[in-house]
């Protein structure tokens, strides 16, 4: 089995996880910028983080034959402070030419506040100006439905944004239809307690089809599973899904979306 992990926070994981992922068939890991679990005190903290995502982490992954790509932004959990967000967003353009940067993400909303929305709009404008792909985080739990609607409004109101170049992540049964119907890509996150289980993610694939959708673990510093994607592939197999369908969902689909960024190459031959 081969797969792409399109959303993992490897800075929070031990090196053994890279080894386990490589053994399980992972070829590529993509890492959106996110909240560290505590608030950074200045834009300089983000500058160091962006250096980690574009330099140190790809080197750590390469030791296990894994390609590492990243996405840059200030995450919605730190977006209540608009002045800090402006300073961080001003840092991003100098990193956009790094060979492993795929776009702007994971931007979005957390508590659906006015300031979060303002910072989301700033990020969307940045992505439009520099022709970047966008990866969107939708809020957790009771805030997800409302947040997804607000995010869709922002994206649809900017005429420069093409939906097929945006993935809206952490969809569940009450939001996946909204996202796909509007022409965006949808990400399903396999995360204990708060997001999709493998069984539910496969239910969604069986109900909504296998176009413009991917699976990710979003493994981070919380209790989470860097092998959630291959475990879900195994469950698809148990349900009788053919190997070609499994390969489409865990390999071809992320390759198709991410390949819209010319820097995304899987190997020298780019199979």
């Amino acid at each position: 089995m081969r797969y792409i992990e399109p959303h993992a926070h490897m800075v929070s994981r031990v090196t053994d996880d890279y080894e386990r992922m490589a053994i399980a068939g992972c070829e590529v890991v993509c890492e959106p910028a996110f909240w560290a679990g505590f608030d950074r005190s200045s834009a300089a903290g983000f500058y160091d983080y962006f250096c980690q995502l574009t330099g140190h982490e790809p080197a750590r992954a390469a030791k296990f034959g894994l390609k590492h790509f990243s996405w840059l932004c200030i995450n919605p959990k730190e977006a209540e402070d608009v002045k800090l967000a402006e300073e961080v967003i001003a840092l991003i353009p100098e990193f956009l030419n790094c060979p492993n940067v795929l776009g702007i993400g994971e931007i979005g909303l957390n508590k659906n506040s006015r300031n979060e929305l303002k910072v989301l709009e700033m990020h969307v404008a940045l992505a439009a100006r520099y022709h970047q792909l966008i990866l969107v985080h939708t809020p957790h739990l009771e805030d997800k439905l409302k947040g997804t609607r607000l995010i869709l409004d922002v994206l649809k109101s900017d005429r420069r944004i093409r939906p097929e170049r945006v993935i809206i992540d952490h969809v569940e049964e009450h939001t996946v239809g909204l996202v796909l119907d509007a022409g965006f890509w949808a990400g399903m996150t396999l995360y204990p307690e708060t997001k999709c289980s493998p069984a539910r993610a496969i239910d969604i694939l069986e109900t909504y089809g296998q176009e413009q959708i991917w699976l990710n673990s979003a493994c981070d510093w919380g209790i989470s599973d860097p092998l959630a994607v291959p475990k879900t592939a195994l469950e698809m197999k148990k349900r009788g899904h053919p190997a070609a369908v499994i390969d489409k969902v865990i390999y071809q689909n992320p390759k198709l979306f991410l390949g819209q960024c010319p820097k995304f190459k899987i190997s020298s031959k780019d199979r």
Partner: protein
Amino acid sequence: MTQQQVLDLYFLDARHKLIEVAAFLDRVERADGKDDFRLKAFRAALGRLNDGQNEKVKQVLLAFSDPTTRPIAKAKGKSAAGAWAGKTG
């Protein structure tokens, strides 16, 4: 998959989860003090399982969701409770 295949693959797991829900309700009802909006939302969501509607998981998720549409004035914290408290912030 046929219904038999679904039952073979998922019945024991679903039975286990249902018993955990029952035990949670016994536990919280046995405890002293007051409940809050979370338990009320939980009971409302449980009700959606038996009202004959399709898309039960969607109905349960909607029962826990903030139905309002306007952004709140300010984010007071970062975490989510799992159920809407019923205020518009």
